[in-house]
C-alpha cells in the first residue's frame, strides 16, 4: 500500500538532497572574503530604510480571506468531479448536480455581497 507513494517520497527525498548538497558544497568550498560592502542587505548600494519587517496594509487580509473561503469551496469540487459521471450512469446525475448548484448558489450570494461591498476593489 505504501509502495504506491514510494515514487513521490523518492522525488521529495531527492529534491531535498540536491538542495542540501548544493548548500553544503557552497559552504564548504566557496571562498569567503566578507567586506563591509558585501555584507550589506543590498549589494547594489542602496541603504536599507527602516526595519526589515514592515506591516502590510489590512486590505490584503480581506483579499486573502476571500481567496481562502473560495478555495475551500473548490476543495469540495474535487471529490464531486471525481464521482459525477458515476452518478450520471446511475441516473442520479440531476440530484447530484442540483446539490452542487445549491452549494454554489449560496456562495454566489456571498460573492455578490462581497462585490457590492467593494471588498474586491483595490481602492
Amino acid at each position, binding site marked *: 500500500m505504501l509502495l504506491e507513494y514510494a515514487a513521490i517520497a523518492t522525488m521529495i527525498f531527492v529534491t531535498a538532497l540536491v538542495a542540501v548538497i548544493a548548500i553544503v558544497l557552497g559552504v564548504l568550498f566557496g571562498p569567503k572574503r566578507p567586506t563591509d560592502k558585501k555584507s550589506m542587505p543590498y549589494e547594489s548600494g542602496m541603504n536599507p530604510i527602516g526595519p526589515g519587517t514592515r506591516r502590510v496594509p489590512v486590505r490584503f487580509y480581506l483579499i486573502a480571506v476571500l481567496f481562502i473561503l473560495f478555495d475551500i469551496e473548490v476543495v*469540495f469540487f474535487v471529490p464531486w468531479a471525481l464521482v459525477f459521471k458515476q452518478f450520471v450512469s446511475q441516473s442520479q446525475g440531476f440530484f447530484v448536480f442540483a446539490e452542487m448548484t445549491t452549494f454554489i448558489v449560496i456562495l454566489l450570494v456571498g460573492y455578490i455581497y462581497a462585490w457590492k461591498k467593494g471588498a474586491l476593489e483595490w481602492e
Partner: protein
Amino acid sequence: MIPVSYYLALSAILFTTGMFGVLIRRNALVVFMSIELMLNAANLSLVAFSRLYQTFHGQIFVFFIMAVAAAEVAVGLALIVTIFRSKQSIDLDQMNSLKG
C-alpha cells in the same frame, strides 16, 4: 500493522499540548494556533477510528471539520486584526478594559 492505540496516544498527547498552549500563552495568535492543534489531534483520532471500523464516516467528518475550521479561522483572524488596529497589541493580558 500498527495498533490503533498508538495513533490514539499520539492524538491525545497532541490534544494536551494544544490545550496546554491555550492555557499558558497570552499571545492571541499563538493561542489560536494551539486551538488548531487541538482540532488537528481530534482529526487524527477520527481518521484512525475510521480505519479501525473500515467506514468513511470518520474521514468525511474530518473533511467537514477542515472546512469549518477554515471558516472559523477567517472570522477569528479578522477579529485579531481588528483588535490590533485599535490596541496595537494582541496580548490577552492587556485585554482588560472589561472589569466589574
